[in-house]
Every structure is written in structure tokens, then in C-alpha cells.
């Protein structure tokens, strides 16, 4: 014997639902169906959830053509474009975004914005008030006002997007994109546009020739073709040079990434050895500034116009551990700046925390003889000139070796901030 409440709980039915079913069975009445069950919808042609818009072929066609248009707006980010052009990015497993099929829309677009545009294109006006209440009204002045019988909801719009264009995404804005990649991307985009314009112009001229001058001399025709071929050849040559340059850039970035990964692996292999036998690898960089006071919970309107005090955060990760832990050095703008002296000071403090600093003879200043230096210390930075890549940080290497922190000090700078994911898994300092 099983208690009916216990059985209902096991099945996952509530008490009321159980009672309804029980009454139906008792009175030999067919069980009630959900209003939308077995009605055609977007999930299934026969038995999906019912949805008015999904049944409407006009709406579906409008959505289809709209997303076809949206796909043309796709603008891949600079590094992805460079990698695709150069076709040397074979080692994709360590790239920040592994999925090459992703179609990335410009970051300034938003899902709500696209929905609004869709409605606008189909004769509806989308308005939202300050509280977020949405009103969709018919725009009678629009030529497409009677195209759709009723506008699809935002939910339907998003469901269609997810179902049919899963790889179409609006990425988050990115910072620290490699300058070289950006220039290459701009140049190649310019080339592509120019080529498209040339093609269009050529198509137009061909049409004209066919319709008007069917009796042109053969010599003249040949000359025209020759000129076209010449310009095409020039364009191809220019784009080839561009691709070669990009390929060299990507290759260098890959080499640098492999080098850093090798150093990280060495550090991980040595993690259980005593300090003076370990090869160390640290990754360090400044985070974006924070502010004090910061009203993150509730922001009084006037604070928008006030200037808070900057708080700086310098993060140092010891890459020897797969589950990385970061030391975040946090200070305010009245305590220090963000220059080379600060980077060196904080690195030195981190070495102290790791127990790498030697003991000195207080009379002579020399390092005690019993101190054994580590075989190698690697400091990985991004290629930020002035802050990380400066004379103070370079010369710190000499000081480290001279003061017997290590026998070899290496500073690999990442070639390109976005192509290599130089930091260890779990650490996205870049």
C-alpha cells in the first residue's frame, strides 16, 4: 500500500492536480487537455505548443527575410578576420572563441533593437516608457502596415532566432584588440568593398554593352577586357600582400603563445619541488579601474556627474597551479600611480609573498651564501607599452638575477592581445 499523497509527490503532481485526475477517472470522464496541446506551433508541425504567430506563414516569411538581412550586417572582429584571411590559425583550441561558425553582429546592435527594427519594417511602432512597459501600435502611414495580421511577440522573435539562427550572436564589446590586426582588418574590409563595387560596375557596363553596342569592334572589346584584367590583377596582388603580412603576424603570435604555454607547463611540472628548484611563471597586468564610492546597488542620479576616486588593481597569477589563484594588489589614486615603478614594486612584493627574496648580510649588503636562486622566473605581460613594457621592468630582470632570485629571468610579451590566450586556463587576464 502506498499513500496517495506520496505517490503524487513521486510522480511530480500537485495535490490539486492529483484530485482533478482522480475525479475524472472516478466519474469516467476523459482527462482534460491543455488548451495548446496538439495544435500546430513552432516546436512541431503537428503537436507543438500553439502560437498564433508561428501558425502565420506571413509572419514566418517576414522573420525569415529579416534575419537574412540581419546576417548581412555581420562584422567579424579584427583578429578573427585576420586569422581567416591568413588561414594559418590551425591551433584553434586555445583561441578565446573556439567556434569558427559564429556569425558575429556588430556590438552596437541589441536584441530589443533588432526586434524594434523588425516591427518598424513591417508597419508597427514599438514604444517603451521609462518603467519598461511596452506598447506596439500599428503605423498607418507605413506602406507595410497591413503586411502582418498581428505582430509577433518578442518571445516569438527570440524563439525563431534561437531555433533558426543559433550561431548568429551579438558579442560583447571587446577591448585590447591588437592594433596590427585591426589595421589588417580595416584594409581587407576596404579591399572587399572595393572589389564588390568594381564587380557591380563591371556588371552594369556589361549590360550596357549587350543592349547598346552589339556592333562594337573586336579590338576595342579586347582592350576593355585587358584593362579589367589588369586592375583585377593589381587588386589580387595587393590583397595577396596583405594576406601574407597578416599570416606572418598570426604565425608570430602563435609562436609566442606556444612559448608561453611551454613555460606555464614547465611551471606546473615543478609545482611540488622546493622553491629553489622550481621554474616559476607569473602573469601580471592591471585591471580596468574601479571607483570609490561606487553605488552599484542603487545609484542616485546626481552621482553621475561626480568624479569618484580611482582604485587601481594589479593582478598577479602564479601559473604553476591549474586552479589559479590571483593576488590582487588594490590601491587608491592617492597612494600611487600606474607606471613602471609601481609594476616593479608590486612584482617585488609578490616575490616576497612567494618567499623568493633572498636574505642580505646587513653589513656588506651581499646576498647570504646559503641562499640558492631558483632556476628560472618568467614574467608574462601583454604588449602594453609604457606600463608593462618599459625600461624599469626590463632592468628589473637584471636586479632579479643579480640579487639571486633566479639564474634566468625571462619576460615574454604577448604579440597580440586577442589571438593568443596566453594566460592559463581559468585566468582571463587578457
Amino acid at each position, binding site marked *: 500500500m502506498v499513500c496517495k499523497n506520496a505517490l503524487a509527490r513521486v510522480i511530480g503532481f500537485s495535490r490539486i492536480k492529483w484530485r482533478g485526475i482522480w475525479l475524472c477517472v472516478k466519474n469516467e470522464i476523459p482527462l482534460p487537455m491543455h488548451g495548446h496541446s496538439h495544435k500546430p506551433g513552432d516546436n512541431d508541425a503537428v503537436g507543438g505548443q500553439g502560437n498564433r504567430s508561428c501558425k502565420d506563414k506571413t509572419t514566418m516569411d517576414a522573420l525569415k527575410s529579416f534575419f537574412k538581412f540581419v546576417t548581412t550586417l555581420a562584422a567579424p572582429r579584427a583578429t578573427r578576420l585576420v586569422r581567416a584571411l591568413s588561414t594559418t590559425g590551425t591551433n584553434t583550441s586555445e583561441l578565446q572563441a573556439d567556434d569558427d561558425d559564429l556569425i558575429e553582429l556588430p556590438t552596437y546592435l541589441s536584441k530589443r533593437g533588432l526586434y524594434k527594427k523588425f516591427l518598424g519594417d513591417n508597419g508597427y511602432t514599438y514604444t517603451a516608457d521609462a518603467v519598461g512597459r511596452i506598447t506596439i501600435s500599428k503605423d498607418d502611414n507605413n506602406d507595410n502596415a497591413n503586411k502582418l495580421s498581428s505582430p509577433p511577440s518578442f518571445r516569438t522573435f527570440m524563439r525563431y532566432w534561437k531555433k533558426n539562427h543559433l550561431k548568429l550572436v551579438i558579442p560583447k564589446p571587446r577591448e585590447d584588440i591588437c592594433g596590427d590586426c585591426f589595421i589588417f582588418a580595416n584594409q581587407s574590409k*576596404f579591399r572587399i568593398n572595393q572589389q564588390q563595387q568594381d564587380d557591380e560596375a563591371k556588371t552594369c557596363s556589361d549590360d550596357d554593352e549587350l543592349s547598346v553596342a552589339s556592333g562594337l569592334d573586336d579590338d576595342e572589346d579586347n582592350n576593355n577586357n585587358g584593362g579589367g584584367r589588369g586592375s583585377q590583377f*593589381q587588386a589580387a596582388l595587393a590583397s595577396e600582400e596583405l594576406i601574407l603580412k597578416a599570416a606572418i603576424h598570426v604565425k*608570430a603570435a602563435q*609562436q*609566442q603563445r606556444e612559448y608561453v604555454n611551454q613555460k606555464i607547463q614547465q611551471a606546473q611540472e615543478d609545482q611540488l619541488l622546493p622553491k629553489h628548484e622550481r621554474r616559476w611563471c607569473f602573469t601580471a597586468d592591471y*585591471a580596468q579601474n*574601479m571607483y*570609490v*564610492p*561606487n553605488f*552599484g546597488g*542603487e545609484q542616485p542620479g*546626481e*552621482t553621475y556627474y561626480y568624479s569618484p*576616486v580611482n*582604485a587601481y*588593481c594589479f*593582478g598577479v597569477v602564479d601559473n604553476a597551479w591549474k*586552479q589559479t*589563484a*590571483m593576488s*590582487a594588489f*588594490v*590601491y587608491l*589614486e592617492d*597612494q*600611487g600611480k600606474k607606471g*613602471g615603478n*609601481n609594476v616593479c*614594486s608590486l612584482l*617585488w612584493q609578490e616575490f616576497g609573498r612567494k618567499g623568493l627574496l633572498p636574505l*642580505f648580510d646587513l653589513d*656588506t*649588503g*651581499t*646576498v647570504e651564501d646559503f641562499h640558492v636562486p631558483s632556476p628560472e622566473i618568467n614574467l608574462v605581460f601583454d*604588449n602594453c607599452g609604457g606600463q608593462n613594457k618599459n*625600461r*624599469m621592468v*626590463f632592468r*628589473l*630582470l*637584471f*636586479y*632579479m*638575477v*643579480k640579487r639571486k632570485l633566479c*639564474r*634566468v*629571468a*625571462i*619576460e*615574454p*610579451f604577448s*604579440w597580440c592581445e586577442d589571438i593568443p590566450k596566453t*594566460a592559463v586556463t*581559468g*585566468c*582571463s*587576464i587578457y
Partner: protein
Amino acid sequence: MFNLLKKEYRKADVHTPKDLFEVLANHEDIDVVKPWGFFDWDTMENRFMKVPKDVKKQHVFTVDCNRDPSISLLFCQTTFGEPETTQEIILDEYKDKDWGAIGFAHPEKIEEPGMQDIKWKELYDKWRPLVPAYKHKDWKFFMEDPGVKRRATVTSNTKQSTKKLRTERSRTSTEAVDKAAPIVEEGESESAVV
């Protein structure tokens, strides 16, 4: 990792530096550390070393006492695997000497830059009323009035600087630029693009 660090910060009300440390230290993988001070490495290094040159194109820098026992060479590579170049960095008079021990060769502590007067004034006058009263004691700038003198300096600085900036701001007439000869010749346009 920085994202994890700031996840809580973005949502939280941070009124004082103490709050900031508390919010940041919430994540178990993050160890929030207060710097023990900043030091003038540049001056100390200038005593013993030259400034490395042509570093923009280089990406791997190595100091190796196994290959260079005198510890005076900086090995540079454009990328890992490329040929190495060397630069002599240590000054001639300190070569083959334990310069690290000379006068303890440690960098001097840099004085803290301090809070800008204008920010202090703003913190006290504008931010303080928005911060709960029991937190005022946690930060000096909420507790101490910047004083009449500082306020006067801020006011005069602001007035002077804005007026001065407006009047002395450099301008270039666009008409003059348009009339001038084109910078890129027609023949050069192709090379300028690529």
C-alpha cells in the same frame, strides 16, 4: 579572473576603501593585498644600467647568468624562435662587480601622490551626504573638511584653468586645410591604402 573579481563589485554599494577590500575579497580564488609601498626603481636602475633601446619590436627579453656570467647582457628576440640580439645594459664601471650590494642598491620609497584637492572637496561636499553616517569614520576624506584654503585654491584653479583652456585652445581652420594642396597625390593613393 578580473571578471570574477569585479562581479560582486559591480552590484555592490562601495562607500569606502574598506568596503572595496571586503567586496573584492569575497571570491575564494582571489587574494586581495594592500601594497606595502612604491619604490623609485628608475633612479636606482639608472645608477647602474643604461636604458634598453629598440624594444618596441622585441617580444622576448632574457637575462641569463648561465650564458652571461657577468650579467650585463639583455638577450632580445622579436618572437620565440627568431634569432637573438644582445644589448649591453650594465654601465662599464659596474661590470663584473656585485653592484647589487653597493650601498644595498635598493630603490627609495616614493612619496604618495596624495588626494587631489578637487576630489577631496567633492568627496566631502557631494559624496559624503550620500554615504551612511556610520561609514564616515572609515575614510579620512569623509571625516576631515578640506578647509577654507583648499576650497579657495580649487575654486581659483577651476576658474583660471577653464578660462585659460578656452582661450588658449589651439584651432585649425578647416577652410585653410581644404584650400591647401592635397597631401596624397593621385598616384600614391593605392600605396597609402595598403
